[in-house]
């Protein structure tokens, strides 16, 4: 087993895949968005509850691979309770992290478990698995209920 593969399927990812946080429909929710990856057929729906300018709750329903499920699970834990503007910043940072071409310094203190997702950068065919949830969350925040495609 090579190092890149172990970095991709490290314990944090597999743990979130097996026992995801915040999986299931949010009741009640104020916004939702569906993400769809037509290449692999994976579907992922993100439900959010916005109270004032804060993301007070977020849950997801996913039919997909370990990477997409783990990414969604980590996303919910790293965005809940934050001001909406901060959530938008975090989405932008994570998408930059996942899709960036250059090696970037990963700040574990800020990113925490999000850093585990960075292993996907060495698997170009799988990056869209990791970004799907984040695109869906962005669309949910923008109240755009059209399915997003990655």
């Amino acid at each position, binding site marked *: 087993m090579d190092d890149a593969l172990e970095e991709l399927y490290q314990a944090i990812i597999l743990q979130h895949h097996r026992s995801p946080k915040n999986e299931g429909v949010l009741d009640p929710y104020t916004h939702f968005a569906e993400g769809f990856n037509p290449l692999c057929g994976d579907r992922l729906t993100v439900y959010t509850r916005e109270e004032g300018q804060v993301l007070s709750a977020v849950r997801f329903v996913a039919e997909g691979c*370990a990477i997409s499920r783990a990414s969604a699970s980590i996303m919910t834990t790293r965005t809940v309770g934050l001001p909406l503007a901060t959530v938008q910043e975090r989405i932008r940072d994570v998408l930059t992290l996942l899709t960036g071409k250059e090696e970037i310094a990963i700040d574990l203190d800020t990113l925490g478990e999000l850093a585990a997702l960075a292993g996907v950068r060495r698997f170009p065919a799988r990056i869209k698995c990791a970004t799907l949830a984040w695109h869906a969350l962005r669309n949910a925040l923008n109240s755009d209920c059209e399915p997003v495609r990655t």
Partner: protein
Amino acid sequence: MHTATQASTLDLSDLRAEFPILQRSIGRHPLTYLDNAATSQKPAVVIDAISRFFRQDNANIHRGVHYLSVQATDLYDRARAAVAGFIGAREAREIVFVRGTTEAINLVARSFGGSRLAAGDEILLTLMEHHANIVPWQQIAAERGAIIRVVPVRDTGEIDLGDFRSLLGPRTRIAAFAHASNALGSINPVADMTRIAREHGAAVLIDGAQALPHGPIDVAAIDCDFYAFSGHKMFGPDGIGVLYGRADLLNALPPYQGGGDMIERVSFSGTTFREVPERFEAGTPHISGAIGLEAAVNWLRQLDWPAVHAHEQALLEQAETLLAEIPGVRLYGCAPDRVSLLSFNLEGVHPHDLGTILDSEGVAIRAGHHCTQPLMQHLGVPGTARASFALYNTPEEVERLAAAVRRARRLFA
């Protein structure tokens, strides 16, 4: 496409030596290429034929008065004749060169469907079809007000002839079905299906994309109206494929695309069209592709097919046995007559994760819905992992596949 005779043995190392790419590595591992149903690798004779054409013989065909153009026209015509001979067509003009199976089916859907379908007419498909043999029919059905009927797939992965017959009716204008399933491997009884469909007055199109890589076919014996296949899955180049069609039927259909080469006479008061095959080959065709396909066909012709068939079936049986021993593996499709491909899932591991883990061992498979979403819905899975074997694969490669699946299972345990 398969003959049950006593097989001699195949010299695998000689065969593999003909395929330059099989010598390469993926990272630290030898390439274990088990994605042949997506595209096959190419023998040196095919690569060299294309290279030789561009180095020595390149010119546009038809109407040229210079030496190279006349020669290129001859080479293109010779390729058509070689393909006709390989599939048992009565005449070379029954071979229309297209980009691939998808374009061939679109051509028939447009030209046949567009001229022969009326509101309420029926198109008969099967549940195991590739999207390429579903979507063009949906598009033309929507335009013409036609209805699509779908033959179910039995639990074994087979089409039942009784089911097929019961869905044919007085309004069925065409039945279109795969010779071999790209997701399950099932080989359909295409000669029987063709006979039954034609008894009901329906035309027949067969999607042969997954059949040709596993042996010669005989369109005259099958007696179908149309047969479509792709060069790149049968050891030829991509971008070239074939629509076989009965000459009388093709000549009675309107052209698919307009342009050069397909016209008889053009004026602004009206244009008349040539007969087949030029009728359906507008514009400069893929000349080098046809020449590469001819090289592939000639290469396929000299193989010992009973030995190849026995070898491929042995690989399939070995793969089934080794994978079935792994706890949590589920195999899909158990039709008695199958081409050498195997769809499977490992419990708790999404096919894409499995594909990535296998890739890290140099094992190339396909993971996903295989462009057969209706079939996947029927199976109740989002997708499968698919290992598809070609004549150059080895028992050691099947062992590597099984070992990599075991590794995936340990990783996700």
